[in-house]
């Protein structure tokens, strides 16, 4: 397909933009089986090693309605609501299975509500098999044993869906693709704006790592994106997929350190490992997981990365449903301010913030910068 395999840089950039815009719909024509993923924390290479394309399902848009919304409380995250509607409407029926990352809170709720609706045999279209990926985020011998057992259960699940059970060779092969993707993602730093980097990075959630690497390499080779001058900006808080918000931020400078869950914390470090043992160990040690233990590792790693990126301004934004990141904000800001970094909390925003919110956010940043000057 020429659209999917562009032979020039401009085509690659357009393809990445198209994949990002279409979200998981983009991969409908893939020539390999699809396995869905909900939530960060699931090493995609384990699915790739089974011969499937790992496709993230937490960024989709729902157009249909479904009565499952009658059991979804108003404080449930938007992406969970959207996913459940799509799942029960049959939009995801073509997937071999869907894997939920237990340590991503919305994914846990999505799994529970989906499985309960199905257990009650309530009205729904065809749904694929669902699997909960339990992984404990710390390092000890019992945890390593536990995580290894979970990998075995995942492989059983993948096999049961008709895929190949991952082995040493297929894991190594998957890691080669991931390493290529990782290099290409790193090469975006300074070459494209933070806004472009965000879109191109997340386009990869809807395709294989090799294809993503190809597109990134081609896109960067022909890149004419001008990265904005001004402040070096860090972005933290809830998962944010709003292009207008990025555009607003980059009116002040460049997003050089994007640590919100849809930012540069994905793909996780486990993807680069060639052996199962290393995949699990690196994933368990991923300090971007809010459930990492020791618990102080989360903020410490965040501060270290923002400082290392020489951020001058750190912007926090929160989903309406945030109940976790807010605990970090006062101390995070204290620690960053002690390093001379300006901080501004834009507060709560919708999944797709309206223009008025974006304008108000810009005013808050202006005021914060004035207060610092």
């Amino acid at each position, binding site marked *: 397909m020429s659209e999917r395999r562009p032979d020039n840089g401009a085509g690659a950039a357009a393809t990445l933009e198209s994949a990002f815009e279409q979200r998981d719909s983009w991969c409908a024509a893939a020539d390999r089986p699809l396995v869905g993923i909900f939530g960060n924390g699931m090493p995609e290479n384990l699915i790739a090693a089974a011969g499937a394309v790992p496709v993230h399902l937490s960024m989709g848009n729902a157009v249909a309605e479904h009565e499952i919304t009658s059991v979804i409380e108003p404080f449930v995250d938007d992406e969970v609501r959207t996913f459940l509607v799509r799942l029960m409407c049959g939009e995801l029926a073509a997937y071999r299975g869907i894997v939920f990352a237990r340590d991503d809170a919305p994914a846990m709720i999505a799994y529970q509500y989906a499985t309960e609706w199905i257990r009650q045999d309530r009205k729904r279209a065809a749904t694929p098999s669902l699997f909960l990926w339990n992984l404990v985020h710390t390092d000890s011998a*019992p945890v390593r044993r536990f995580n290894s057992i*979970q990998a075995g259960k995942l492989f059983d699940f993948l096999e049961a869906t008709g895929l190949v059970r991952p082995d040493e060779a297929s894991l190594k092969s998957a890691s080669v693709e991931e390493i290529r993707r990782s290099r290409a993602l790193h090469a975006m730093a300074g070459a494209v704006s933070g806004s472009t980097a965000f879109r191109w990075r997340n386009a990869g959630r809807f395709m294989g790592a090799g294809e993503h690497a190809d597109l990134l390499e081609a896109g960067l080779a022909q890149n004419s994106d001008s990265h904005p001058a001004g402040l070096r900006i860090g972005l933290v808080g809830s998962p944010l997929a709003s292009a207008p918000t990025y555009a607003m931020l980059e009116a002040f400078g460049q997003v050089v350190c994007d640590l919100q869950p849809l930012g540069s914390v994905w793909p996780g470090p486990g993807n680069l490992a060639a052996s199962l043992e290393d995949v699990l160990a690196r994933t368990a040690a991923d300090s971007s997981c809010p*459930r990492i233990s020791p618990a102080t590792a989360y903020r410490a790693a965040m501060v270290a990365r923002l400082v290392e990126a020489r951020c001058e301004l750190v912007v926090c934004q929160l989903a309406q449903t945030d109940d976790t990141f807010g605990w970090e904000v006062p101390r995070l800001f204290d620690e960053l301010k002690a390093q001379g970094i300006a901080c501004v909390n834009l*507060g709560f925003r919708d999944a797709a913030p309206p223009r008025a919110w974006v304008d108000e956010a810009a005013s808050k940043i202006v005021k914060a910068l004035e207060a610092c000057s």
Partner: protein
Amino acid sequence: MTHEYTPLQATAAATDYQREWARSLRAQITSGEQYAFVNADTPHELFHHIGLPIVTNQWWSAIIAAKQLSEYYFDYMEAAGFHERLARYSSLPLIAELEGDKSRQPWGGLPTPSILCARQSADDHQKIFSLWAEITGAPLALISSPAVPSPQSDWWRLAREDWESLYHTDRLDLMVAEFEALIAQLEDLTGRRFDHEGFAHYMDRINLQERIYEEASELIARAPRCPIRISEQIPNVMIPQWHRGSDWAVAHATRFRDEVAARINSGVSVVENERIRMMWIGAGLWFDTSFYSAFEQSHGAVFAWSMYLPFASDGYIRESRGGPLRALAARVSAMNEQLHQPPWINSWMVEQARRYRIDVALMLIPEHDRFSGHGSLFAKQALEEAGVRVIEVWSDMVDPRQWNRDGMLARIVPELDAVLTEKRLT
């Protein structure tokens, strides 16, 4: 003539005991004795058995709220940069600690704990306890919380004997290993040896205590009219629960059960003309417990059920089968989840509503304590399908700022009127 409700003697005995225990504990810890500050769903048994006193986060939170201090602290919380949608029940003690003026707190505040312990059942628990650890310097023991991938809806039928298959071997193996690490930490901290042989006996005593509560629950459920208010059920269960397995706790459970039985035998009830039986779903409304009796005179409506009494048996009895530490892991490994996650919560609510012959359920849904609020609408639908009228109460257990008592009464009264009409009792 107005029916006068007479409190149980056991209630005063329980609160007196707790007051004295608190006084003694305060004296111990302010004179430098070690204590642990722990979340409610952690293995208290390990701390008790090694002789390290504990203060439970949610109990301390309820104490602060009952002293009408929560409004002040939650205003402070927001001024300190924590947004208003963060959990309150589990964070109130932390906020009081951050505020720093110990003289404002009950007991003059808590000294620095020797150890903190939380379970990662909800993401924010580890954030809250991590902040505690940062400001106090106390070590934090985190118990991991992988989920049960295929929860069986009738968990309470399986949990006592067949817990290995219910909670899964891999999860229990991990939790036992984490308990062993915690025991080693407690041994280092206290300089005492954990008596494994004695622990089996201690676990048997806890099972005995919870079986007595099961008998009390059955008595109340089967009585022609509800013999005691839930505002008395709660302290008579939860105070001994904080001391579970001790001689006093077992004796108090017995005293409570026997006093309830005596009341039933002599025909004593909360209201003489009981017409509506209600359940209060969720944690207690700690700042306004008199709300539980608000409909007794007007509608003959009595709250017969709160989770604390029946959960004593279903949530706690785990037969050791030669492995008391593993049985403890079975008790702890889904303790909170059983009260908040589908299918566990919806199935159990229906079972309990049937057992207690419930007409109306008031369901507390704390929107800013999402772990406690998830699954509420599944439970609501299940109860409605079982013929129970459900009224949602969108409020918080410890924050009175959004509690509108008059508004809530105005919502509930028409519902109770409708029930009376349906039952042809008007």
